[in-house]
């Protein structure tokens, strides 16, 4: 359960690259990203659709569908490089030490299997010696933990007898069953009502603090991340463009893309003003612009941006991939 080197972060990703080898060309869905998440920490991974944030999640858990493939970088989980693990060892890790929660709760549970079957099999996949009764009790407790009323009865239900919010709680309960060290949550609240969203966020946060589980929360919704995460990584075109503590990044964004994202969120202090819109569209992964990927949509781009910008650290703890980072002056 504990890391070999106790001070090693739960997850450290170095230069991860996942490419999709399609007939139309190579799509660099994830192209050299690095970040780390410590014990009990919550990292928000933010970006538009197609920015590579979900592929990052699937790369870590080793479930990238062909024609995609992890082509470079290191994924160190508790100091151990996951690329060196064989299929069976990776399977033992999945759902046991690293769990994942998906976006659409209506689709993640198998419609023809009862909840207890789907929960108990998760326990037995990693330890077949657990007696059925013990496994059932653990499943029931997990359901109770995520706030499902009368978990004993609900164990015998089928997924379609739950609402969307309840199904997502079941999925979270399944992820928690084996008390993982890392949970990857891929937009888990996007399909839910705002009130349910709040409850689930609260519970996720509570669980991380209590159990020391590291959490990667993938989302496109900055409002969700704001109250939840410790750190934030903003992805654009398969790369991380800005990284830092949540409050700093949200208050003083350095990258023009992050500024654009924040500007396009409606806020109460900007009532009556026209909402900001980032011009243009996210680039196709098959035809990335030369140099900085954000250049065609950027208002402050110049000739320097035709060359690939590197990650810099203008302020301690803040990383940004831009030639013209804003100085971090408060507000805009």
């Amino acid at each position, binding site marked *: 359960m504990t890391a070999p080197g106790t001070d090693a972060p739960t997850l450290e990703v170095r230069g991860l690259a996942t490419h999709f080898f399609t007939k139309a060309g190579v799509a660099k869905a994830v192209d050299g990203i690095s970040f780390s998440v410590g014990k009990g920490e919550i990292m928000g991974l933010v970006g538009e659709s197609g920015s590579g944030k979900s592929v990052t999640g699937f790369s870590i858990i080793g479930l990238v569908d062909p024609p995609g493939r992890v082509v470079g970088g290191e994924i160190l989980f508790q100091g151990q490089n996951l690329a060196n693990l064989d299929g069976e060892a990776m399977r033992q890790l999945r759902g046991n030490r690293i769990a994942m929660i998906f976006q659409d709760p209506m689709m993640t549970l198998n419609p*023809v299997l009862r909840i207890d079957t789907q929960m108990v099999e998760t326990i037995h996949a990693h330890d077949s010696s657990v007696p059925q009764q013990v496994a059932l009790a653990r499943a029931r407790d997990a359901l109770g933990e995520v706030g499902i009323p009368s978990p004993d009865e609900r164990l015998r239900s*089928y997924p379609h007898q739950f609402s969307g919010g309840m199904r997502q709680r079941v999925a979270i309960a399944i992820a928690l069953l084996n008390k993982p060290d890392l949970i990857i949550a891929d937009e888990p609240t996007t399909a839910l009502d705002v009130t349910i969203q709040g409850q689930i966020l609260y519970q996720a946060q509570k669980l991380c603090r209590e159990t020391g589980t590291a959490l990667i929360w993938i989302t496109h919704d900055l409002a969700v991340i704001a109250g939840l995460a410790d750190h934030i990584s903003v992805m654009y075109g398969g790369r991380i463009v800005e990284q830092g503590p949540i409050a700093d990044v949200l208050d003083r964004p350095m990258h023009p893309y992050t500024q654009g994202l924040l500007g396009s969120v409606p806020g109460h202090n900007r009532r009556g003003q026209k909402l900001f819109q980032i011009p243009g569209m996210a680039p196709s992964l098959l035809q990335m612009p030369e140099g900085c990927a954000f250049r065609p949509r950027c208002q402050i781009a110049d000739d320097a941006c035709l060359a690939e910008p590197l990650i810099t650290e203008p302020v301690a703890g803040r990383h940004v991939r831009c030639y013209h980072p804003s100085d971090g002056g408060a507000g805009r």
Partner: protein
Amino acid sequence: MSAFIIRRLLQSVVVVALMSLLVFVGVNVVGDPVHMLVSPEAPQEEIERIIRNLGLDRPVHEQYLFFVKNALNGDLGRSFVFGEPALKLIIQRMPATFELAFAALLMAIVFGIPLGIYAGIYPDRVSSKLIMSGSILGFSLPTFWVGLMMIMVFAVMLGWLPSTGRGETVSLLGLKVSFLTIDGLRHILMPALNLALLKISLVIRLSRAGAREAMHLDYVKFARAKGLRESRVVMVHVMKNIMIPVVTVLGLEFGSLIAFSVVTETVFAWPGMGKLIIDALHNLDRPVIVAYLMIIVLVFVIINLMVDILYSILDPRVRIKDAGR
């Protein structure tokens, strides 16, 4: 659930009643059985006596009501040719046909589902493409021709398997069955495979489509993310979802296995209902034809009912909806 079954039963009764009318009228406008039974030289009085005996002198609607009255008492008329109750003739031959049909169904499941799932999971492998090409052949080659070829190769040239009949039979619960003896198994193998070929192809196609679809669904990905072994992902998560369409189609196809075993039974001289109906059609033996068709209707109706019930067991979403009604 019980309300659902009662509703289905009532529907079934209506279907059977309508079919009896259609079958009876349909058969009665075709040909003149008397000419087939009586020699052309027979005197006019003799012919009229036979017509009266068979009840053919009365108007069709009276004949029908008479038939319905008797049918409700379990009497579907006497064979013109054999002079025995038509129902008895059919029931005698039923076990042979059912045995053949069940053997074919079993083959369709045992060969069709694994091959189909394999082809669905590994669509790019050469073996998968071979399976799919084979299923196209299974669909398109005519049953009688394949049957004849099988006889030629395995019975005539290689001499491995017998070509006709049921072989040695044993009595099981009062029914004669072949599958409990080695000789019987050798006899049933070829006709069953011949009859199953089309269904195997069908199940392969269904399972492949189902597997291909399911492999990309979130719940399969989630099952993998839970760390389940690939065998459990396929055998439980994928398979149980594929079974829904497969059971539906196979159930319906089982009726057609029985109804259309005629060709196979003729080729392999399998002494079942199919052989009987062919003979009855030759002789215009109306009661046997009508009785056979009624039995087939009943079989279809019962199978449909069973499929619906089985379906609701496999798919919990169907179950709940009906309980709520």
